């Protein structure tokens, strides 16, 4: 469903991705790991068509998105749900409005919105907080809202960019279970993470990127122990509660 073919992206003399070829199937749950600056963000940005590759092709649902016009970008993004480390909720909207907004944007009728928004909220277990504003919620609750917003339009793929990065371990696991549930409903999940602990315990496909190249791609992998996968300084700086 997603296929990168010989994708290269450089920023001046810096390498973002270097001749990367990889494919992700429908229903996959993929961890994208690697040190900062290794190319994970580039990988995601290319899929969202935030940036264009220098060469190579990226196919998404049978469409070559490198050849897609800028006008079609909103359409592409509607079929991709996105969750960020910093949640990115609209602060002046309530929980309900934040989720409903994702549907308003794609011009869904008010009846559909009234039906689907509570469903999404109950799926992430946050129905009781619907009338609150994001800053009244805990970090974990905010991330649940963000996930509800990401899945309310039934995207085929959910991209999670360090979704547990700002959460304590227990909350992080709650979010992981939620993502697992969503994956079981058939949604493909690509999760960028530094949480070694989570990657090891989940035992899912792991794609490891370093210096713009895929160094490892295992069907049921762990985070990887060597410096090759994860630099020391990186551990200290970015590891958070899950690093050793």
């Amino acid at each position, binding site marked *: 469903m997603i296929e990168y073919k010989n994708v290269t992206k450089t920023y001046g003399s810096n390498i973002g991705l270097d001749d990367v070829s990889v494919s992700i199937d429908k229903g996959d749950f993929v961890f994208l790991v690697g040190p900062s600056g290794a190319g994970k963000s580039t990988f995601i940005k290319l899929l969202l068509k935030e940036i264009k590759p220098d060469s190579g092709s990226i196919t998404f649902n049978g469409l070559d998105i490198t050849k897609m016009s800028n006008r079609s970008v*909103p359409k592409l*993004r509607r079929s991709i749900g996105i969750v960020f480390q910093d949640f990115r909720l609209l602060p002046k909207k309530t929980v309900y409005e934040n989720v409903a907004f994702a549907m308003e944007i794609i011009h869904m009728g008010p009846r559909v919105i009234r039906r689907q928004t509570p469903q999404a909220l109950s799926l992430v277990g946050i129905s009781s907080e619907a009338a609150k504003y994001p800053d009244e919620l805990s970090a974990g609750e905010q991330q649940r809202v963000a996930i509800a917003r990401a899945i309310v339009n039934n995207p085929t793929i959910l991209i999670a960019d360090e979704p547990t990065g700002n959460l304590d371990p227990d909350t992080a696991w709650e979010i992981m279970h939620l993502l697992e549930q969503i994956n079981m409903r058939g949604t493909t999940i690509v999760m960028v993470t530094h949480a070694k602990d989570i990657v090891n315990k989940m035992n899912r496909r792991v794609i490891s990127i370093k210096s713009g190249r895929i160094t490892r791609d295992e069907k049921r992998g762990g985070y990887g122990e060597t410096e090759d996968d994860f630099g020391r300084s990186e551990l200290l700086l970015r590891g958070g509660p899950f690093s050793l």
Partner: protein
Amino acid sequence: MSYSIKQAVKQFFRNGAMSTASVFSISAILLILGFFFLLVVNVTNIAESVKKDFDTIQIYLLDSTEYALSDSMMKKLNLMPEVLDVNYLTKEQAMEDFKKLFGDKAYLLEMRQENPLPNSIVVRVTNIEGVDAVVARARSFDGVEGIKYYKEAVNRLIRFTNFIQVGALALILFLVVISVVVVSNTIKLTVVARDREIGIMKYIGATNWFIRGPFLVEGILIGLVSAVVSAFVVGFVYAKIIELFGTDLIVMLSTGFVPLRFMVGNLAVIFTALGVSIGACGSIISMRRFLDT
């Protein structure tokens, strides 16, 4: 659509201070513009009426010219399409008019033995541009002593009104550009404040027009409010001016101000059109940097 309007109204009131500031600056510009409009329309109106006073040509006849000859001249002139009417002015009648002009000093004229004024034909043209043709024709007649007309004065008047019109138009264009910049800067501030929000909207697949919508409507709203405010102010001031100087103007130039109702009606339309386009342009310009993908 309803989403954009709801958002825009909310933003307009939420940014109360900024909205008020923009409304003030656009109103100020529309006001200046409105007063120039009043000036131009009234000057044009006065010029038109003054032109009417200069649309006569006086053909002085030699004393030796027979009435039969002058009568045939008048018939020929009357056939010209440029001519409105033709009248014969005897030297006696001319003297009477002349005396009237002198008023109580008319006795000075009595001292002359002989009437020095010639008989003349007074031609009125339908249109000031027709003067040349009539004058050329009159020159070709025998028995004409001279021709008096106000071509130069009228030309000067036309040049003056043209200058006012062009000058005002240039100033108006300049002001419109300024106001677009003012609005775009105001809206840019609200856009910057909502930069993050716009980013989020783009991530979840909002089209540029969806994002632009509320800002566009906000700009239009600012423009509309400014238009209403300035139309009221200009109307009020114009009514006062008419009240104070209206009769003086009629006495001096035999024409009044252009009526209030006509002026305010037209200005309201112009202000609305300008306000809306200024607001819309301003908001689109201010969004440009934030929406290029």
